[in-house]
C-alpha cells in the first residue's frame, strides 16, 4: 500500500480516473443535498452559514473534477521554430551566485534562433545592498543588465521596463532563482507556430524541496497545481502565467498594455487580459527549469499572501464572469482559481462550529451524529482519494494542513482587498544565529488563539453537557481542527537544532555548470 520512491517528476504523470471523479461529484452532491434537505434544521443562522460553506465546497469539487477531467492533449508545434527571443531574468536582491547560475544556464540554452539574455535588476529601486553586484555579474557574463532607477509596478514594472528596451519577437521570463534546462527554448518556442499563441507556461519546480519542512510543503502544494490542475486548465484554454519559466509573444503582451502593474499577481491578471483578447495559452507539463522554494515561514507566508491578495483582487475588481471576450470555460476557470482563496472564510466557519456548540449548545442541524457520519465520511474519503490520485500521490498531509491553516492569511488578504489597504509584515526573516529556524510564531497567533478558545469552549461544553455523544463528537471535531493547525504552528516556531548546515540543491549536473549551495 505504500511506495516511498517516486520519480521526482511523477506529479506530471497521472492520468485521472474518471469513475472516481464522477464518484466524488456524486458523493459531494448527495452529501450537500442530505445536509440541506434531509435533516431538521437547528439554529437558522448556523444552518445558513453551514449550507453556504457546503455549497462552496461543492462548487470547488465540481470545478476541480471538471478541470482535471482530461489533460491537454496535442498542440501545433514546430521543432524548427527560430523566432528571436529575449530572456528576462528578474532580479530583486537575490544572491549573486544564484543569479549567476541562472544566467549561465540561460546562456547555455540550445536554440536555432537569436537569443539575448538580460538581467532585469530591481535591486536599486528595492533598496537592496547588492544591486551593483548584479551589474558586475552582467559584465562578467557579457549579458545586458537593465537596472531600474524609477520604482513602480514591482515585477511587472520591471518586465515592462525591459520590454521597452528590447525587440525580440518573444520574451522568456525566469525568476533569478529558476535555472533553465538546456532544452527549454527548443521545447517551448515551437508552440508559437500557432499565430494566436500568446504564452507558454512550464512548471515551477522547486529543486530545494528537500531542504526543510517549508520547502517540502511548498513543493507538495505546487504538485497539485502544476500537475493535474494546470494541464486541465490548458485543455480548457485557461492556463495562466505563473511569473516564471514562461515564454510570451511580445506583440500579445504589448497589445494588452504590457504586464499588468495594478495587481500584485500581475501574471494572473495579464493572462486574463490576453485571453480576453483572444490569445491562446498552453501549459507544457515538463520540467524545464528548476528553482527555489521559499525556505522559511515568513517567505512562504508572504508568497501565499501575495497570491491570495492578487487572486481576490481579480474577483472583486476584475470579476471574470462579466469580462467580455472570455469563453465560459475561461470565465469559470478564472473564477475557480481566484475563489479558492475565499476558502479561508469557509474553513474558519467550519472550525468555529464545534466551538459554538461547546459554548452555546447551538447546532446548524439536528440529527444523530452517526447518521451524519454515514453521509460525511464516504464523501470526505473519496474527496481525499481523488486529490491523492490526481496528484499522482505527490500531495501530502502537511500540504493540506498548510492550506487549511492559511485561513487567517486569507481573511487578512480579503480584508486588505475589500478595504483597499496595503499590508506590511511586522516580522523579519532573520536567522536565529545558530542555524536554526527563526521564530515566526507571531504569524500563527490566530491559530494559537483558536486552540485556546477551543480549550475554554471544551470546559464550558463539558460543564453543560456532561459526557454526551454530542460533546464527544464536537470534541473530536475540535481535535481535528487543532491537529490540522499543528504543522503550520510547528513550521512557524523556532528551532535550535537544524539537521544540516548546508543543503545541496539537486540541480541537473549536465545542464548547470556548477551546483548551487544554499545556506539555511
Amino acid at each position, binding site marked *: 500500500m*505504500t511506495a516511498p520512491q517516486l520519480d521526482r517528476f511523477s506529479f506530471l504523470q497521472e492520468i485521472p480516473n474518471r469513475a472516481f471523479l464522477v464518484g466524488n461529484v456524486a458523493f459531494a452532491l448527495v452529501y450537500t443535498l442530505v445536509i440541506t434537505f434531509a435533516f431538521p434544521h437547528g439554529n437558522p443562522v448556523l444552518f445558513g452559514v453551514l449550507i453556504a460553506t457546503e455549497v462552496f465546497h461543492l462548487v470547488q469539487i465540481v470545478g476541480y473534477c471538471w478541470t482535471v477531467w482530461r*489533460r491537454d492533449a496535442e498542440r501545433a508545434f514546430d521543432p524548427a521554430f527560430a523566432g528571436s527571443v529575449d530572456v528576462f531574468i528578474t532580479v530583486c536582491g537575490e544572491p549573486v551566485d544564484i543569479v549567476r547560475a541562472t544566467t549561465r544556464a540561460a546562456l547555455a540554452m540550445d536554440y536555432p534562433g537569436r537569443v539575448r539574455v538580460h538581467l532585469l535588476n530591481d535591486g536599486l529601486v528595492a533598496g537592496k545592498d547588492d544591486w551593483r553586484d548584479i551589474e558586475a555579474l552582467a559584465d562578467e557574463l557579457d549579458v545586458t543588465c537593465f537596472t531600474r532607477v524609477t520604482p513602480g509596478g514591482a515585477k511587472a514594472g520591471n518586465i515592462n521596463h525591459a520590454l521597452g528596451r528590447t525587440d525580440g519577437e518573444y520574451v522568456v521570463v525566469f525568476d533569478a532563482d529558476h535555472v533553465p534546462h538546456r532544452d527549454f527554448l527548443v521545447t517551448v518556442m515551437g508552440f508559437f507556430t500557432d499565430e494566436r499563441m500568446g504564452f507558454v507556461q512550464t512548471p515551477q519546480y522547486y529543486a530545494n524541496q528537500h531542504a526543510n519542512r517549508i520547502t517540502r510543503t511548498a513543493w*507538495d502544494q505546487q504538485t497539485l497545481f502544476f500537475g493535474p490542475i494546470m494541464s486541465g486548465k490548458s485543455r480548457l484554454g485557461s492556463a495562466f502565467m505563473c511569473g516564471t519559466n514562461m515564454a510570451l509573444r511580445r506583440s500579445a503582451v504589448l497589445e494588452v498594455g504590457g504586464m499588468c502593474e495594478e495587481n500584485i499577481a500581475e501574471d494572473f491578471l495579464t493572462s486574463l487580459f490576453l485571453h480576453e483578447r483572444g490569445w491562446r495559452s498552453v501549459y507544457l*507539463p515538463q520540467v524545464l527549469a528548476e528553482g527555489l522554494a521559499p525556505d522559511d515561514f515568513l517567505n512562504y507566508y508572504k508568497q501565499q499572501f501575495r497570491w491570495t491578495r492578487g487572486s481576490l483582487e481579480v474577483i472583486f475588481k476584475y470579476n471574470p464572469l462579466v469580462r467580455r471576450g472570455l469563453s465560459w470555460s475561461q470565465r469559470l476557470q478564472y473564477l475557480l482559481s481566484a475563489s479558492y482563496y475565499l476558502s479561508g472564510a469557509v474553513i474558519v466557519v467550519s472550525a468555529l462550529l464545534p466551538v459554538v456548540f461547546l459554548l452555546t449548545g447551538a447546532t446548524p442541524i439536528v440529527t444523530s451524529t452517526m*447518521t451524519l*457520519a454515514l453521509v460525511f465520511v464516504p464523501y470526505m474519503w473519496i474527496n*481525499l482519494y481523488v486529490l491523492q490520485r490526481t496528484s499522482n500521490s505527490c500531495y501530502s498531509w502537511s500540504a493540506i494542513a498548510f492550506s487549511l491553516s492559511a485561513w487567517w492569511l486569507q481573511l487578512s488578504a480579503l480584508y486588505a482587498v475589500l478595504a483597499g489597504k496595503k499590508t506590511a509584515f511586522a516580522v523579519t526573516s532573520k536567522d536565529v544565529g545558530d542555524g536554526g529556524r527563526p521564530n515566526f510564531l507571531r504569524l500563527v497567533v490566530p491559530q494559537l488563539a483558536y486552540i485556546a478558545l477551543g480549550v475554554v469552549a471544551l470546559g464550558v461544553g463539558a460543564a453543560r453537557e456532561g459526557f454526551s455523544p454530542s460533546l464527544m*463528537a464536537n470534541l473530536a471535531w475540535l481535535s481535528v481542527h487543532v491537529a490540522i493547525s499543528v504543522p503550520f504552528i510547528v513550521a512557524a516556531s523556532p528551532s535550535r537544532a537544524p539537521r544540516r548546515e548546508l543543503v545541496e540543491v539537486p540541480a541537473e549536473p549536465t545542464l548547470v555548470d556548477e551546483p548551487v549551495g544554499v545556506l539555511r
Partner: protein
Amino acid sequence: MTATLDRPAVTVGRHARVEAARTRPRRGRGLVVAVHLVSAAVVVAWSQLAFLGRSLRLDEAQSLWQTNHTYGRLLELIAQDVHVPLYHVVLRTWRLVLGDDIGTARVLSLVFLLASLPLFYLVARSVLTQRWALFALVVFSTSPFVLWYGNEARMYTMLLLVTLASQVAFLAVVRRGRTAAWVGWAATAVVGAYVHYFFFFVLLAQGLFLLAVSRRLPGRTVLKLTGVVVLVVAAFLPWFLYFRANGSASGTRPQLPTPSSVDFSNVYSQFLFGFQSDPVNTTLVSAWPLLVLGALLSVRVGSRLDRNGAYLLVAAFVPVLTAFVVSHLVTPFFLSRYMVPAAPALLVLVVAFLAGLGPRVSKVLAGALLAVTVAGTTVQATSSDNPVEEDYRAAAELAEQAGPRDLVVVSSPFTIYPFEYYYDGAARVSTLPVWNRQQSAPTYDAPELPAEAQSLTDGHQYVYLVLSYDQGYQDDVYQYFASRYEQTAAYAPSDGLQVLVFRVGYAEVVPLGSPPA
C-alpha cells in the same frame, strides 16, 4: 507537426519493485512461525481463561438442538431455519466423534479460529511488510470480536476461515490470475456459500472488484468470473430448491429491526473494540470525526492504494454496506456477527494506516492499538454490562429455587433451549405463548394471552418468569403478571435477561427457598 502534452503514467517499474519487495523470498521464517505460535497460544489462553466456560447462549442452544438430530433431519431443520447447512453437518460429526457437550462444540469454533491465523497473515502480507503483518496477526489474535465468536458454538469463525481462504485465493487471482488461483477461489466460493448466506455479499464484493479491474488483468477475466458464478449457482441450487421446498424459513425468521446508522457504525466499533457497554460504545462511535483526521493523515507523498489495498477496502466496507442497503430494501437481517467476514480486512487496513505513518508515531499508535484491543477483550470478558452475554446458566440456577408447586415460564418461547440446557429444578417449565415443540414456534396473539397465562398459573404458588429476546410482546407478558400478582423478586443475570418471581397462589406452605417478598 504536433506536440503531445499528456505524458503516460510511468508507474509500472515502481509497482514491480513494490511487488518484488512483498514477494521477496521469505526471511525470518522462524519469526513468522514463532509469532503464529504465540498468537495461537494467545487465542487458546483467552478462550480458556475467559470465554469457553461461559453460559450457553440462545443461538448455541439452537446449534446443539439441531445437531442432536440425524443428518437427514438436521438438513430439514436447517432448511426451515435461516442458515445454510455446512457448519451444522460438521458440528454434528464433531460432536459424534468428540462429545456432545457445549464445551466440545465450542472447541470446533476455536479450531476454525486457529486455522484462520495463517490465512489472516497471508492476507495482511499482501499489503504489509512482514513485520507489520505479524503485528496485525497479534492484534487479530487478541481481537475481542473474533475471540467472542471463536468461543461460540456457531458458524461465525467457520465463515471467517472460509472468507480468509477466499481472500487469499482472490488476491492471487487479482495478482497473477493463474489457473490454480481461480480454482482455489472457485472452491472457496462454493464452500462459503454453504457456510453462511452473508458470504454471498463477500462474493458480490469480489465480483464487482474483479469487474472493475478486469481490463488490467491477464487472460479472460470476465469469462472466468462468469464461470465461477455459474459454478456457485449450480452448486448452491440444490440447497436453494430444498430450502424453498421446506418453506423458505418463513416461520423461523427472527424479528430484527431495520438497521439504523448507529447499527452500521456499531459493526465497525465491535470489530475493533468488541462488545462494550452502551456508554462506552457510544463514546467510541461518537468520536468518528477522528476518521477525518485519519483520512487527512493518510494523504502522503508516494502513498498509493494499490490493487490489494483497494480490494481490502472493498472487502471491509462493500459487504456491510450492501447488507445495510438490502436490510432496508428487502428484509432486515443486519447483525454484526453476520458481518464477521469484513472484520479481518478492516483490521489489516487499520494496521496499514499506522504502518504508513512516521516510524515513531506508527510505533506509538501501534502500541496503543494493541493496548486498546487487549483492553477491549478484557472488559468484554469481565464486564457485567456486556450487551451480548446471555447468562441462562444463572437464570436456570435462580429458577431452580422454584418448588414442585411452582411454575417456570420462559418467554420468548425459543429461549427455552438454552434455559433447559442448565435447568435441573423441580418445577415444570413452560413457555408463553405456549409452545407445542413438535410444531413450529407459536405466534403471539394478544387476546389469547390472558387465557394462556391463566391456564399456566392455575394451581401453582409462584411463577418464575424468565424474560429475554423480546419479540415485541415482552412488555405485554410482564404487564399481565405485574397487574394481577404480587412480584416477590426480580433478578437480571445479564443484559436483557430477567427472572421475575410472582406469587400466583396462596397455599399455606411457602415454597422452599422462596426469596423474601
